[in-house]
């Protein structure tokens, strides 16, 4: 078989479409000379080159690039979600703690600090404070209030000596307890005034709004409930007799002092004198038994003691005189003493 005849069937040979007989022919021809071998090799390579190109043409690089772009985007998204997850995990405690403190903004009980603080209002002065839980307290003349630096634990305990008006920050989980001595007050959130001046043998509690429980003993096991006050009610506890009475009152009269207003509403003269004594830190003495029957009504805001006494003089048959101050043994001057005399 000559060269051209063989070359004619080479494509079929490479495609494997030749009969065994013809295949053998090609192989014999290929082995018969170096030249034939070379032609065969070159033909085979050319054929395979064509086949390779054919294989390559199957692949659409445009379409594939779109797929690759989509895969890259998906992966970037995954990386982003992982980062987001990590960020969320890291930020979670921050959010929780922020929420915790934001929701309990007045309750900084996370930090326990049991040191007791005492705030006082000197004689003749009034002052106001905000307690660690946000409760607002007005202290009247000669009053002291003790409270811890933080209200840790389940209670908000304060101790009162004197007269104070409370606007208790609401926290039902942490009752606000005012220790006034024998009678104590339990509050969750309300407005009331309490007084227990030690020289008066009387504890007064006036409720403006909300509700309060009066109890004796320690809050907890030994607690003995006495009464639940309603708004507008006033509890009078006479210490020496261990007796309590409740009455309905005009609450304004009892709390106006917090706004710097001195208010009398049909108050008997001894009551008026007592209040003036506290207000101005003076010592007024009533002479004459009949004066106790006089009742007095009036509202004072910026008036001085002298102006008030002059006004009292107009509405009641009285005269007053200021007793000269004397030097005490410790070189301090005595309180201003005033005597009110029945005319």
């Amino acid at each position: 078989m000559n060269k051209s005849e063989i070359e004619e069937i080479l494509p079929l040979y490479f495609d494997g479409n030749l009969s065994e007989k013809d295949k053998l022919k090609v192989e014999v021809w290929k082995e018969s000379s170096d030249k034939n071998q070379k032609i065969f090799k070159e033909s085979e390579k050319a054929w395979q080159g064509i086949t390779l190109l054919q294989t390559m043409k199957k692949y659409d690089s445009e379409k594939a690039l779109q797929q690759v772009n989509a895969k890259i985007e998906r992966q970037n998204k995954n990386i982003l979600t992982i980062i987001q997850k990590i960020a969320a995990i890291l930020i979670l405690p921050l959010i929780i703690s922020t929420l915790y403190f934001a929701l309990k903004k007045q309750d900084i009980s996370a930090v326990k600090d049991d040191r007791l603080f005492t705030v006082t209002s000197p004689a003749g002065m009034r002052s106001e404070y905000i307690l660690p839980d946000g409760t607002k307290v007005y202290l009247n003349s000669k009053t002291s209030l003790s409270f811890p630096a933080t209200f840790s634990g389940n209670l908000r305990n304060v101790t009162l000596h004197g007269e104070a008006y409370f606007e208790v920050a609401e926290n039902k989980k942490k009752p606000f307890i005012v220790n006034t001595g024998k009678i104590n007050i339990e509050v969750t959130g309300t407005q009331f005034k309490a007084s227990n001046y030690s020289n008066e043998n009387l504890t007064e509690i006036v409720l403006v709004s909300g509700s309060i429980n009066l109890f004796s003993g320690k809050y907890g096991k030994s607690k003995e409930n006495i009464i639940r006050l309603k708004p507008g009610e006033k509890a009078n506890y006479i210490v020496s007799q261990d007796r309590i009475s409740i009455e309905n009152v005009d609450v304004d009269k009892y709390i106006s002092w917090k706004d710097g207003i001195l208010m009398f509403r049909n108050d008997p003269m001894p009551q008026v004198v007592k209040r003036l004594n506290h207000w101005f830190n003076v010592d007024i003495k009533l002479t004459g038994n009949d004066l106790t029957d006089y009742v007095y009504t009036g509202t004072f805001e910026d008036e001085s003691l002298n102006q008030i006494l002059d006004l009292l003089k107009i509405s009641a048959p009285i005269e007053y005189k200021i007793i000269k101050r004397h030097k005490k043994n410790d070189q301090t001057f005595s309180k201003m003493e005033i005597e009110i005399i029945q005319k």
Partner: protein
Amino acid sequence: MPAKPNALDESFLINGIKSQNKIVFDFIFHYYYSGLCAFSEKITGNEEAAEDIVQDLFVTLWTKNEQFIISSSLKNYLFTSVKNRSLDFIKREKTKAKKINVLANSTDLAENLSTYWFAESELTRVIEDCLQKLPPRCREIFVLSRFEGLKNQEIADKLEISKRTVELQISNALKSLRCKLKPFLPIFLIYFLLK
């Protein structure tokens, strides 16, 4: 010898990938994609797997761009990576154990790669140049046979000629191509390494 792909500025391409230059990336992708797929298909015998392997390689190339280290040429890197990934694929498939042995022996694969073309665009150019020089009838029959995938009998029916004429024309084309492709033939050597 024709221009080799290392005529492309390799360092420009490599830096382009490292700096996530999408134009460079797209260029490299189009340039090598079909060649790499054909190469992977030759190893795996699986067209779909070949595309997945090559696409994943490019995804990695883009996303892990900073860790991308090229010791020889970019083309060498791409083909070696595809080879390794394709071998991993068949190891996983465990279907073509024989082929692994054959390939494991062809250790000079990577070294040889650098001297051959494997880009469709270049191969196309060379082959199409040759085809242009064939007589029109001969070229038509050859294209139908090789690129349209028609069987000889189908071509004969279509063109209303004898099957014998078809076979003759194809062999003429091959003869012509063989002579014209001679200077480029080392290009295809890689194909036989894999055969």
